[in-house]
């Protein structure tokens, strides 16, 4: 099962870097109350890429976005846009546009005036503006709303106006600050798909900020997972999901079991680890320093309940059975006292699922990963 790594992440190296940040640090406040929102961050975001900054609130993702937009100036470090140093440029001369979290539509202007605002400020002729606004309105399918006031629009429509307004001046990079957070679930799903196709259509680099891992996995070409002002891992959604290199990344993306372990030795690209309850198993190495103490990460879907004839890798006592619709989640208590969640699809017939039953599980090949 090594084929999942065949899609090399390096397929875009030939592409130009659109945004490059080096040693970027942002500190708010001074002295004892100073808070470091961004800590020595290096990042390269490529041309024509849908790039997502993912992390919990306070991880620095929005600060990074605002530094790129120019709303804040970095405490130290450097930002380049398409090879040009923009670190100290004010926002109005950066060819970068933002879709704000609450859209920030100008309430005293119509939809058309909102969309045309950037072009007007750039000094375009009114004919040119009119044509471009029309084009943008049709792109976001709001032709009928051109002369409405923005407060007469639904949340989804406002979202589209914000998008059209930011895209109208054809920026080199579009920054999106949790733009879907205010929408309801169904609308959000639709907008995810629309955003993705809009990005493909326009060829503009999108930098998307979200705390929603599912959103990030659905839309992105690459994701940067952030915590405490630092970038922990950058990779394609598949890499981030399947091959987390950091315990936090593994935990933050999707459901996962993390078991404490001790490194016993290496066998090829596998590491032999001893769990707290004494069982040993082979787990895929991640290149991280895995001397001594480590953790083993197991996705619930890469484990299954042992059938007759299987040799269970782990055994635990059934504590809870949670019905999930298409599957059951079995919450097992291991001998070490740790909890293990197993996703069991299909029928539960022939399984003893009474509370307290001893249940063995089998781990899919390559399903276990060693994390520092």
């Amino acid at each position: 099962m090594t084929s999942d790594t065949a899609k090399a992440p390096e397929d875009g190296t030939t592409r130009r870097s659109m945004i490059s940040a080096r040693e970027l640090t942002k500190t708010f406040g001074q002295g004892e109350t100073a808070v470091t929102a961004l800590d020595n961050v290096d990042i390269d975001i490529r041309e024509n890429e849908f790039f997502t900054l993912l992390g919990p609130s306070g991880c620095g993702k929005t600060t990074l976005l605002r530094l790129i937009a120019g709303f804040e100036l970095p405490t130290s470090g450097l930002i380049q846009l398409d090879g040009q140093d923009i670190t100290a440029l004010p926002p109005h001369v950066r060819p970068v546009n933002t879709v704000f979290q609450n859209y920030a539509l100008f309430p005293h202007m119509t939809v058309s005036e909102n969309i045309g605002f950037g072009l007007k400020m750039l000094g375009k002729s009114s004919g040119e503006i009119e044509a471009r606004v029309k084009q943008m309105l049709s792109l976001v399918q709001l032709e009928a709303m051109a002369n409405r006031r923005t407060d007469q629009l639904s949340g989804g429509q406002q979202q589209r106006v914000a998008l059209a307004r930011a895209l109208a001046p054809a920026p080199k990079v579009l920054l999106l600050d949790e733009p879907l957070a205010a929408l309801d679930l169904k609308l959000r799903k639709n907008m995810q798909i629309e955003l993705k196709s809009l990005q493909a259509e326009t060829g503009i680099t999108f930098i998307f900020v979200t705390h929603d891992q599912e959103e990030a996995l659905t839309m992105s070409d690459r994701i940067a997972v952030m915590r405490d002002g630092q970038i922990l891992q950058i990779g394609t959604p598949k890499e981030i999901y399947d091959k987390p290199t950091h315990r936090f990344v593994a935990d933050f993306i999707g459901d996962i079991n993390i078991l404490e372990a001790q490194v016993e030795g290496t066998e090829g690209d596998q590491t032999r680890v001893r769990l707290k309850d004494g069982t040993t198993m082979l787990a895929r190495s991640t290149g991280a320093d895995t001397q001594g103490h480590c953790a083993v990460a197991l996705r619930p879907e890469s484990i299954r309940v042992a059938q007759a004839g299987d040799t269970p890798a782990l055994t635990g006592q059934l504590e809870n059975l949670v019905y999930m619709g298409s599957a059951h989640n079995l919450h097992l208590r291991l001998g070490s006292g740790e909890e293990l969640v197993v996703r069991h699809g299909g029928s539960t017939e022939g399984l003893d699922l009474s509370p307290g039953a001893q249940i063995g599980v089998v781990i899919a090949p390559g399903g276990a990963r060693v994390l520092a």
Partner: protein
Amino acid sequence: MADTPPLAAGATAQSTRRRMRSRDLKAMPGFKAAGWACIFALYLPLVVLVIFSFNDNRSVVKWTEFSLRWYEAAMENEGIRNAAWMSVKVALVATVFSTIAATMAALATTRTAAFRGQGLAYGIINQPLMIPEIVTAISTLSLFSLVKQLTGITGVGYLMAAHTAFCIPFAYMPIRARLEDMTLTLEQAGADLYATPWQTFRHITLPLLMPGILAGAMLAFVVSLDDVIITLMVAGPGETTLPIYILGALRRGITPEINAVSTILVGVSVLLVLVLFLVQGKMKK
């Protein structure tokens, strides 16, 4: 209703409802009456004043017949006309200058991060509100008399300057309140869309701030129009405003003509404040 079992005798839905209303937990006995009495007391004198301005009689006590003769008399009175013109002139100048200064100050105290000396700036701007008017009045008189002595310059400019100073905090209040309600995001969106700082101010901040500026200007105008004490002290000869004229007329005796002029002045204030209230009500929606 037929198949529901009967309740205890006498417990009709109506009687229960009545008891529930009397047990409104928020209500305090007598408070409602006090509230109404308060409004009544606030308006009764003004209502009497207005009614008797339309009385066809020299008396301001006994009603005889509806008439506009006191309004006509007031209009024909040159003293009143001059005073009214002086009031408007002073109020307009004070409104323009105080509103501009207040708008700038409000932008400085809200659109930037907290700064050292911010508290002091607030204190200075609101200072005219914290000092008894009579103290401001005689202090300003002392200053102006000194300046007049030193420079020999006289004129209505002194009165206008004094009005501008005490109008600033009134103009400042609604403008600052409006700015504090406005998120910075809109201005950032403007800058993001290539508007220079000046263009951002011109196309985004200013239009959004306009209701606040209008409210501030109206308050300044009303406050200037209504001022008595400072004007009384500072105004030179021939600089009689309407309130000063009324005060002088009252000293000579009560006439229905005063009622008529007063009614007009009250009417102007009420109208302006009413417009302001409606504008602000709309603003919130």
